Each structure stands twice: as structure tokens, then as C-alpha cells.
């Protein structure tokens, strides 16, 4: 068995009477990227807060880098870096000052701080803006600075809470590239995201949480194959999607579905068949849960 960077068993957490996490089991092998998917309010951020020692669990065992998040808090803190959902930077400082501050807090000397700051500014393409106040930065620049700050010293486990929310496509791809580089260095990365494409691109394993439970986990392909075969998509003459139907992928099943659809939709409806995407999985898993909780 490979070593686990994150090992969560039977985790429960409630705030007041509101149960946020209701028996979570997660294990993340060292050096892999793990993505946590879930709708808003599913408990993703709470889980990250528990893993990063900010919030204490009510029940269950939670180990990060081999240390218990409750009894060995300080050891955990020495092993992790957190990039939270809101860019954790000082707006009224420059990126250089932000970085130097964290360097100093991480135990680097003044000279070391300077070198490391320059190195990180250069790597994250912030050198030109180094002496400008962060409040003048774009969302993408803030995120890059945020990530740069998280990498002042290398910790074995990196938490990223919705790292690319609100970023444009170019910034998002640039960030993905950095995340993959970090993985290549052996850093374990635990991220939450609302973008299924992001999980698909980056993660070795994915867990979908909803209503406080892990409703599915596995590789992106595992999850997709849960839906079985092919998805039939129907478009009208304006190329607008007007319906999707999941099939098992056999010729028999597709033919039956098409027969049915031919009766329901106008003649000019166009048909295409594709592999299920993570979005389909996500919608299926989370909407099923939603229906259950409503009934």
C-alpha cells in the first residue's frame, strides 16, 4: 500500500444543528492530485478547513501527512500550505511586501527572503507588478500571488480551495500548468472545484460530495463509466440543445431510445452521440440526492 498524504475516516462535523459532513472517508496517496467536487454548500470548504486545522472535527479520524489534525496540529501546520477561497493577500501591500512578509514568518532570513521573493515573482510572472499595491491587481494576478505565497517554502501537502473560480480561461490554464508542475515535484494537492473540466484535467482521483456524504469517488473515467454507455444529444435547427438521453451504448438500446425520441421531437431535430462527460455524472449524482432529500 502506498503512503497516504491525507487519511480521513468517519469524519463528521456539524455547526449548531446543521450537519455539514456526515461520515466522510477519503484517502489521498502521496504525490497525487485529488479533486473534491460538489455543489455550493456541500461542505467542501468545511472539509478543507478541517484538513488544514482551522476547524476541529466532531467525530472521526483525520490525518494529514501522517499527523492527526487535532492532537498534532503544529506538525500538520508544518506540512501544509493553504490557498483559501478568497485570495489571502494584503491588498494595501505590494506583492513583494506580501511575499517577503510570509518568507520572514516562515523563518527565512532577510537575505533569503529577498532572493526567494524575486524567484517567486519571476516564476509567477509578477516581477513587473512587484512594487504595485495588490488592490490594483486583476483576479488572475491575485491568484498567482496567492499561490506564490503558498509556495514560499515547500510543504508536502497543498490545499487549494476553488483555485480558479472567477478566472478567465488563459489564467485558468496557466494555473493548471503550475499545479501539474507541483505534482511533478511530488507535492500532494487537494483541491475543491466547481468546474468539472478542471477535475478532469488535473485530478488523479475525484470525489463528489453532496449532503455531507461522498456520493461517488474514483478516477474521472471510473465516474464517467458509472453512467454506462453513450449519451444521445438532440439539437434543434438553431443548434440549441433540446434534450439528452443516457443509453447503455448497445445498438439495441440506442435504437429503442431513438424510436421513442422520433415520436416526441420534430423531424428536423438533429441527433449526436457522445461519451458521457463529468458534468453528466455530476448532475446525475447531485440531482438524485436532491430529489431524495426533497421527498
Amino acid at each position, binding site marked *: 500500500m502506498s503512503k497516504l498524504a491525507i487519511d480521513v475516516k468517519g469524519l463528521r462535523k456539524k*455547526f449548531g444543528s446543521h450537519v455539514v459532513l456526515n461520515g466522510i472517508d477519503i484517502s489521498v496517496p502521496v504525490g497525487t492530485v485529488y479533486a473534491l467536487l460538489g455543489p455550493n454548500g456541500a461542505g467542501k470548504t468545511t472539509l478543507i*478547513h478541517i484538513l*488544514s*486545522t*482551522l*476547524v*476541529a472535527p466532531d467525530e472521526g479520524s483525520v490525518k494529514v501527512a501522517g499527523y492527526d489534525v487535532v492532537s498534532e496540529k*503544529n506538525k500538520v*501546520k*508544518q506540512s*501544509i*500550505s*493553504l490557498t*483559501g*477561497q*478568497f*485570495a*489571502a*493577500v*494584503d491588498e*494595501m*501591500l505590494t506583492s513583494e*511586501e506580501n511575499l517577503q*512578509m*510570509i518568507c*520572514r*514568518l*516562515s*523563518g*527565512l532570513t532577510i537575505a533569503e527572503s529577498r532572493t*526567494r521573493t524575486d*524567484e*517567486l515573482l*519571476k*516564476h509567477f*510572472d509578477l516581477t513587473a507588478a512587484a512594487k504595485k*499595491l495588490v488592490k490594483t491587481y486583476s483576479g488572475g494576478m491575485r491568484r498567482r500571488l496567492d499561490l506564490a*505565497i*503558498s*509556495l*514560499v*517554502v*515547500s510543504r508536502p501537502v497543498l490545499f487549494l480551495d476553488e483555485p480558479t473560480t472567477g478566472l478567465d480561461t488563459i489564467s485558468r490554464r*496557466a494555473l493548471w*500548468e*503550475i499545479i501539474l*508542475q*507541483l505534482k511533478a*515535484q511530488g*507535492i500532494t494537492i487537494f483541491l475543491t472545484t466547481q468546474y468539472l473540466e478542471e477535475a478532469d484535467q488535473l485530478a488523479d482521483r475525484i470525489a463528489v460530495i453532496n449532503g455531507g456524504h461522498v456520493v461517488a469517488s474514483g478516477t474521472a473515467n471510473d465516474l464517467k463509466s458509472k453512467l454506462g454507455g453513450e449519451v444521445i444529444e438532440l439539437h434543434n435547427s438553431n443548434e440549441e440543445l433540446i434534450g439528452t438521453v443516457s443509453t447503455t451504448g448497445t445498438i439495441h438500446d440506442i435504437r429503442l431510445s431513438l424510436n421513442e425520441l422520433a415520436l416526441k421531437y420534430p423531424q428536423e431535430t438533429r441527433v449526436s452521440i457522445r461519451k458521457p462527460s463529468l458534468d453528466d455524472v455530476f448532475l446525475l449524482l447531485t440531482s438524485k440526492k436532491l430529489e431524495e432529500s426533497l421527498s
Partner: protein
Amino acid sequence: MTNITPRAFTKSSSFGLTNAVFIGRSIRLSLRNTEALIMAIMLPVMLMLLFTYVFGGAIDPGGNYVNYVVPGIILLCAGFGSASTAVDVAHDMTNGIIDRFRTMPIQSLSVITGHVVASLARNSLATAVVIGVAFLVGFRPSANAIEWLAALGIIILFILTFTWLFAAIGLVSGSPSAASSYGFALLFLPYLSSAFVPTDTMPNWLQGVANHQPITPVIETIRGLLTGTPIHDQAWWAIGWCSFILLTSLIWCFIAFQKKAGRR
């Protein structure tokens, strides 16, 4: 993009260094917040002029009111100045940065210490401005060097006490604007004290409040030290009140900071 070099480092910064870094941060932030800084300097000047030239003539036609009111203005400004600590602390607690500090292997409560020290520095400056302007408008204290030092000591104790109190208020309030309004409520205390008029001119029921709240003994002590009015046991009351509020606020801060973990 070049590959980022990993940098292993297990050592973390010492307690002293952590505090120094956070103090540097807060002072830098204070200097960058120009509007607040100008307010902190201008307000004392405006109040001093207002009380001396606008109200002073009516309260004490003899023109000696400036000698009476200076300690009051000093405390009022110190109060205003410390109140901004609540806003600064609340701002930090609602911003993601606090989560970063908390997940680092450092004493993260030092963030608050940083704000407190910056407030002490800001308010000492404001106090110096008040005293300077007071001299310009005719303040003539009778204090010798030792009395001056004692008075400054009480003023600094007062600033420290109220800064920690406002830091605690900043920790428990949900947002910077909430922190600001709680702070505002507390700033009525100086008006209900002997800061601007002697308490025996107030109705009886109000005298009870005015004579038994923390500001009055502090004012009376500073006034006595600077202008030679009788102090009696007011100095002990002043130190007692301040120490009590300071200790309570420190404990309150500590508990609130631990409790606030990860909740927004």
C-alpha cells in the same frame, strides 16, 4: 515558464520575530491608509479648536477653559484612535489572510498584537499633536518633568487598554462596518465624564454614572498631574479601571480568537 525550485524549510519564525513582522505589517498598513491617518491627526486639532473657541467662551467666560479641557480632548482622541483597531482587526478576520496565518506554524494571535502596537504608535503621535496644538491655543500646564512622565504613562495605559478592548470588539463583530458602529457607541463615554464639564454641574442621577465610570478617574488624574487640580484617590481608580479592562480584554481577545477559527 521555468520550473519553480522547491525549497524545503522546516524551521519557523520565532515568537519575537513573528511579532516584529506583524507589527511592521500593521504600521505599514496604517501609513498606507492615508485617510484614516489624516483623520487621526486632524480630528484632535479640530476638537481642540472647537472646544476652546466655540464652546469654551460659554462654559468658562474667564478664558481658562483650555486648561480644563485638554485632558478630555487627549482621551477623546485616544478613544477615537483606538476604535480604528476594531475595524482593522475585523477586516483581517473577514479576509482570507487570517486563514493563511492560522495554518502556518506560528503564533497567529500576534496579528492582533501587531494592530495594537500600531495603534499605540498612531495614538501617541495624535496625543503629541493634541498637546502641541493645546500649547498654541493657550494651554499652560503647571506640571514638572515627573508629573509629565506620570501623565504620559497614564495616557499610554489608557490607549493600550482601549486598543485591546477595541481589538476584542473587532474580533467578535461580524464585519468591519459592524466593528465601526460598536466602537462608535463606546465613544460616548468621555462625554458622560468630567472630560468637558465638572460632574457636579450634571443632574444627580447622571453624576452617579459620570463619577463611577472609568473615564472620569483617568481624566481627573491627568488633569491633576498636568494642571495641579486635586487628584485624591482618582489615580488608583484610574490604574485599577485600566488594569481591569485591559486584563478582561486580553482574555476576551484570546478566547474570541480561538473560537473564531475558520468561521466566517
